[in-house]
């Protein structure tokens, strides 16, 4: 997980290249500013081709989480099928065979930890883009931005 700073400068560059950023001299971050100027109703939704900076950032979190999830959930079982000897060894102290422990406690526990991690990351994204929930603000989408540029797969 890279830090957000690099992302922001990238986004700004990206947006500037499209000529869509008009600095208003405010205190918001450049990410929040480009968010305000994006009309999400004009931007294509495609899981493999994020078309807005926000969705690009979001999907990076989603795919990272998904990859770890796949390993946590199906990894131990697969390892047990490949190397049963190693995986069925007893863990000293608690008595579990390794594969049993990793599957029965590791997988659900891992999914729970990942869910917590994701929800936190997503909150941080909201913060970065200046999105507030439950404050009663009305949906204010920008207008007149050019058609979706398709974005870049990363």
């Amino acid at each position, binding site marked *: 997980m890279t830090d957000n700073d690099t992302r922001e400068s990238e986004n700004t560059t990206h947006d500037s290249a499209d000529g869509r950023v008009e600095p208003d001299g405010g205190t918001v971050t450049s990410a929040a500013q480009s968010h305000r100027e994006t009309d*999400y*109703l*004009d*931007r*294509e*939704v*495609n*899981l493999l081709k994020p078309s807005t900076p926000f*969705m690009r950032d*979001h999907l990076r*979190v*989603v795919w990272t*989480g*998904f990859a770890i*999830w796949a390993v*946590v*959930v*199906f990894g131990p*079982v*697969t390892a*047990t*099928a490949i190397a*049963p000897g190693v*995986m*069925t060894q*007893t*863990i000293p102290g*608690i*008595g*579990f*065979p390794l*594969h*049993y*422990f990793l*599957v*029965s*406690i590791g*997988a*659900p*526990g*891992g*999914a*729970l930890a990942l*869910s917590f991690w*994701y*929800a936190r990351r*997503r*909150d941080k*994204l*909201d913060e970065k*883009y200046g*999105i*507030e*929930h*439950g*404050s*009663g*603000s009305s*949906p204010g*989408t920008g207008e007149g931005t050019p058609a979706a540029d398709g974005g870049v797969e990363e």
Partner: protein
Amino acid sequence: MSAVPLQLLPEGLEVSFKLLPAILVLSMLLLFLVIGYLFKVADAEGMWVAGRSIGNVENGMAIGANWMSAASYLGMAGIMVLSGFYGLAFIVGWSTGYFILLIFMAAQMRRFGKYTAPDFVGDRFNSDSARAIGAVTTFLIGFVYAIGQARGMGLVGLYIFGDIGLPGLSGYQSMVVFMMAITVGYLTLSGMLGATKNMAVQYVILIVAFLAGLYAVGFSQGYSTVLPQIEYGALFDQLSNEFSEPFTNESYYLWIATAFSLVVGTCGLPHVLVRFYTVESERTARWSTVWGLFFICLLYLSAPAFAAFGVDLYGGVGMSTAEADTIVVLAAQLAELPRWFVGFVAAGGIAAAIATTAGLFIAGSSAISHDIYANIIKEDATQREQVFVGRAAIVALGVITTLAALDPAAPIAALVSYAFSLAGAVLFPMFFLGLWWENTNRQGALAGMTTGLVIWTIPMINEVLPTYVGSLDGTISPTLAQWVPAIGSALIAVPIVFAVTIGVSMATEEPPEDIKRLVRQCHSPEPMQQMDSAEDIVDSDAPADD
């Protein structure tokens, strides 16, 4: 699963009428009705309109209660007793799927604003045919899922109420009829009262009963003290190898197929998705999913411990499937805990089964009355007619579920997983592609859903139907059963349905602009009001194209 004839009288379980546990179960049902009544006023006026916000924790509990049925409470420990390591596929599938739901669907579903499966596919793909397939699938899910619940209620009901001996039926069958009659009756009452607040209460009863049972068994038998979820590890020496050895009972392939089907099924189940509309914002939708998974994990980390204790207490081998399915109650009984306490543990199982059956039946009957009858068959149907059709659908569901549960084809967890394969094969791809690829169109959705239904039906006919038809003996094609098992058919179905949906969508016209805007609104990070749906924002209430 091999087609071993099921033994439906749990031999080891003490079957007799028990006054205190019976009072416990009945007062529990009464409590649900009272809560439903007390919150009725709030429901009618405030629930949707005044924008009451249901918080993270409360919605998390509701997710937990909605989720955990007899399959979690009884079936999961049961399948671990019968199949050892393979049983863990159920724990993994039923818990880790929530993460996929969280990252890909929870917030988007909240924004879409439509919370019934038929509504979603009907509106997203602008098609009454898609709506009809969605409604039929929802009805089928309710039916298949509820068979497992009826089996659980029948078995545990035997412990509490004894053999009531309806003429011509066995003790188990009489109890299935009796419990289903209670459920349908309760549903008619609670349906009128709109008991939403019950969910959190049901979760508390369920988890307290389960954990109290586990701690009491562990403590009284000297297995564990403060953390049975870890302490049962010490038992592995004493348990037979079958309990932990990998892939002795079932293959690696079946393990993966089962877990995968349960994961995608989780993301496609109509009665799970309903929980996301009642929250104030997408942020709450996300956090309540985290809480929901936490509450679910409390039970799921404990179930293997219960199974291990039960196996050790039972001693010896050759437990019948009926005994395995009641292992949670049986373990408490074998530990010689007081009768009322065992009854309390049993009552928790009945609460879990009734709560989930209620949710399923309501989803199934509204699919029939709202989506098929009022939307397609008779567009000017009056409110009264709709209510009548809905009631008739509940009774019909009750009757066919009871009939199918009299001689069920498999243990509880397996029965329920058939419903997950169905939801995973037919509804999950539509939700996923519908939300994440705006070019998914009507033709693609119709082709995909039909494909999913067909792929789900084939192994059901191959493996499950023969157990109901006397002239057929065992599985029709063992090879087919090996690669497309009924219990995990979504592993094969989901990739094919994805391919068909994408292929047909690309070969045909793109969906109209207003539908695309609807999908984009689901992904817009702009906050929405509680009552807003994506549809309100983009303002596209056009009738279906077909």
